[in-house]
């Protein structure tokens, strides 16, 4: 056991006498004096927080600064160092925040309906794999919307308030099967029904559903039947043209109600490869979920 000679009680300090404002209590000072003499371990170099002193410090940061501005005073060097650090942190921060802020899919407004009815048209398509052209996850399943004459992958639509929106969906994916068969019935549409390949229907067998178009807050649930397995030439990758490949066409219309930002999503577990089919594209904005801005 290291027992140093009675060096002076480590922390015991004689009681304050009359509250004299001795900065360091008397006996402790002796203890410290012994120490300070003994701590003349070589000559401790005066050293700044980061070693920026004149006279060839052996830390390479210090050396590089000397080459830069030999005439600059120490303060100027510090100022340069701090401003560059602040600039770098600011830039990184800006990149970080910008990365978050630009995570919203582009907003697309529905094309105006023909002059007769005051509503709007929305043409969508659902594809089994979105392909490298549209996303960095080529194998993800996704919705696409037809705007300006071509298919775009965004799920953020702007619709007029209190009007009827007629929706046409070209469905290219094979059936996966609904988790909760309750969604196999068409709900919340104008006329409480929808058209599948030209024939009206109000429910489909749940195992035939490939996706749904659902806006829970407006009560709209429309199941989309899948292309049967033995289809001759299914569409491999977006953009799928209804004219050339096998598909199902579902048309319906719904009333948008008053202003607001409603979310819409697919209720079929169609994200193959994730637990219960609800990961990846089903949990990323811009594939199988999105917003409807009723303005």
């Amino acid at each position, binding site marked *: *056991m*290291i027992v140093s000679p009675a060096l002076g009680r480590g922390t015991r300090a004689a009681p304050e006498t009359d509250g004299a404002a001795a900065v360091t209590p008397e006996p402790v000072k002796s203890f410290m004096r012994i120490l300070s003499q003994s701590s003349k*371990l*070589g000559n*401790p*170099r*005066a*050293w*700044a*927080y980061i070693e920026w002193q004149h006279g060839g410090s052996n830390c390479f940061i210090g050396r590089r600064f000397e080459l830069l501005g030999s005439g600059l*005073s*120490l*303060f100027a060097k510090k100022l340069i160092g701090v401003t560059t650090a602040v600039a770098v942190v600011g830039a990184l921060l800006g990149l970080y925040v910008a990365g978050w802020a630009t995570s919203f899919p582009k907003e697309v407004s529905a094309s105006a309906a023909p002059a007769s009815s005051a509503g709007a048209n929305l043409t969508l398509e659902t594809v089994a794999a979105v392909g490298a052209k549209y996303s960095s996850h080529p194998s993800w399943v996704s919705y696409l919307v037809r705007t300006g004459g071509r298919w775009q992958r965004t799920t953020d639509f702007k619709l007029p308030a209190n009007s009827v929106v007629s929706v046409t969906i070209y469905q290219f994916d094979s059936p996966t099967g609904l988790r909760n068969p309750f969604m196999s019935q068409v709900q919340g549409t104008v006329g409480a029904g929808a058209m599948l390949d030209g024939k009206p229907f109000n429910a489909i067998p749940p195992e035939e559903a490939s996706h749904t178009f659902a806006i829970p807050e407006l009560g709209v649930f429309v199941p989309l039947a899948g292309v049967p397995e033995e289809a001759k030439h299914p569409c491999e990758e977006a953009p799928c043209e209804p004219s050339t490949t096998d598909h199902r066409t579902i048309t319906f219309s719904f009333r948008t109600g008053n202003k607001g930002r409603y979310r819409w999503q697919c209720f079929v577990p169609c994200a193959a490869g994730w637990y219960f089919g609800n990961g990846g594209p089903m949990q990323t904005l811009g594939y199988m979920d999105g917003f409807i801005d009723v303005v």
Partner: protein
Amino acid sequence: MASSSEELPLGRMVPPVPAGAKIPPEPPDVGARALSVASRLLAGATTFFFLGYIFAYFYLRSLNVEHLWRHGHINPNQALGAAMIACVVLSAALSVLGGRLMKSGSRSWTVPALGGVALGLVAVALQCLEYTRQHFGPTDGAYASVFCAWTALYLIAVLFTMYWLETQVASELRARRNPAPVEGDIRQADRLIAPGLDAAVFYWAFLAAIGVVTYVVLYLV
């Protein structure tokens, strides 16, 4: 704005080992005490680590969600399991014997210690062999998952302990050839081998006990 403090010689925040500093070497018993406390704490931490798997085993078994806990055909290979646990217990016994011999001063303690290390590695090999003979993988239900994860992690703990024992034996063999310099930063560093072995043997005996619990729960119950 360079304030007057520029000239004030401020000592280095934490000076490195200054040139020529006479740092008194430290007596080895400070390190010895630390090693024994550390091995007991490590034993505690390992217990809580495997407590997670014991809890998982009994919790999932009692819940038996949708009767998917364990299908009839999922049974580990009993023979290889018994061989593995026998090697573990024997290796721990040999290590304890080595520790005793070392304490009694006989120089031949390294033989049982090395035997213990070898048997530990054999146990690991046996368990890996058992994986190939058990006709089920980790994806066959809750029991299979718990079995595979728990035994695999136990093997990793055994390998770490074998490494720890091996370092003590290697230090002893090297110390007999050329003893460590007296004036290193630990005075007579070789006097740390005894407490080091003692700590390693304690931990290995404790881990062997956990191994027995693992064997009983996974193979027999």
